[in-house]
């Protein structure tokens, strides 16, 4: 049997709406041009050990 999630209270619903409105309003403000690449896209490469990352390519 699938459990039904507890319903959100009106207070929680209002908090969620306020949070989303705040975030979306902030991110919609003018970006720099040119917009940079997303920061985290650099992370996966750095996760490999240096000897793997810098190994000679075939």
């Amino acid at each position: 049997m699938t459990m039904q999630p507890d319903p959100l209270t009106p207070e929680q619903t209002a908090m969620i709406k306020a949070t989303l409105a705040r975030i979306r309003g902030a991110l919609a403000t003018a970006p720099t041009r040119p917009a940079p690449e997303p920061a985290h896209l650099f992370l996966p490469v750095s996760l490999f050990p240096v000897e793997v990352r810098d190994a000679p390519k075939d």
Partner: protein
Amino acid sequence: MLRKTDRMVNQIAALGRGDTTARHLAEAALSRAEAFHGLNAFVALDPEKVLAAAEASDGRRAARTTLGPLDGIPIAVKDNYLTADYPTTACSDALPLEPAGVDATLVARLRRGGAVIFGKTNMHEWAYGATNTTSSFGPTRNPHNPRHITGGSSGGSAAAVSAGIVTAALGSDTGGSIRIPASACGIYGFKPTYGRASRHGVLPLSWSLDAPGPLAASLDDLAVLLSCLLGEDAGDAATRGSRPFRPVAAHSRTVRLLHLTGPGLERSAEVDASVAAALQSARGCMVDTRELPGMRRFFGAWETILHCEATAYHQPLLAANAAGFSTVTRAHLEAGQYLSAQELLRAQQVRAEFCTLLASGLGDWDALVLPTLPVPAPAMDSDWQAFGGRRVTTQDSMTWFCWPGNLAGLPAVTLPCGLSSAGLPIGIMLMGRPGQDERLLQIAKRFDPAINLTE
């Protein structure tokens, strides 16, 4: 609260001279924990475990086989670090009260150094807030005035140090959770550069923002702790290539400080005055004031990343046991479910923009300076704070200056810089260049002789 003698480096020296024993330090800490029980700083503390670890330390000292400077020093641990011998609950009803059976890497490093793990400290539920008023164990109270909050989320750790129960404790920092309570309680806190301290075994709030680190009774104490804690750990890929912490010697070169101001960085008049006085009295510093633009946008990026990553981690538990979360924490997690992949990527773009601005858009700087908090520790029952023409929630006032350090992964330290008219501590925060944690601590020492709340 804190007495000048209550510093870890003094305890280390006394142990080395044979003027005290680990058992005596442990007994004194247990006695003080009992005396300050009303602060609600601890959520688990077993005197038998503490005394057994202290006696083992005394045995090593007698046999001349001590494990390092921390051997015999009682150190408290925030309740989101896994510990082999205590339950780890993140102060949430959503987790069972059972010991994990394993230690987080930083706890293991403390034990290998001979430290006496001195219980688990109260925290804001899941570290998802900065007041320490939301906890399954009840709120933590500020040692300087128990009608005021400690700030959070490492509020129990800060209260334990501020009350002189222990001289050091572990915390974690996603938007200021080490620095905020350290400042509100009049002690010292250090958030390392992202990736220099292992997150392995620390229950996550937001993987790319989280930074574990120490709170302590002095800058010298922080240096000893960081020397034990930082460095590469196979359990945390973000630490790959991370160097151990090696304190650097003082030098006489003038350092350049940028005191940041502008919309979104307002503060109360008495906080501003305390920080200005601290900057005037710092030795060998050239101070420029600089407006940091775009704070609303950068804050939006931090908040987006925070909610998306927290929801991704908690989603299974939220689906299985939503009632186990407090009202506010559940609302945060539910909000994260409505944010799209595009919005997360946009936030990461803005994050890159912010890092570029700090790295090359502000000219040359050695440390960025801000108050740690815009107001002294708020009263327990106050939901709003007014300062500098702003009116914001108490929660937002706590992270007001701290989240930039997490968004950019910078090392940051808070130190006391004065007392408010109501006798509550005011802190100043310095943020360093990434990876230059040692240098940041050295710069902070240029302030410290002029600032002392511990007399």
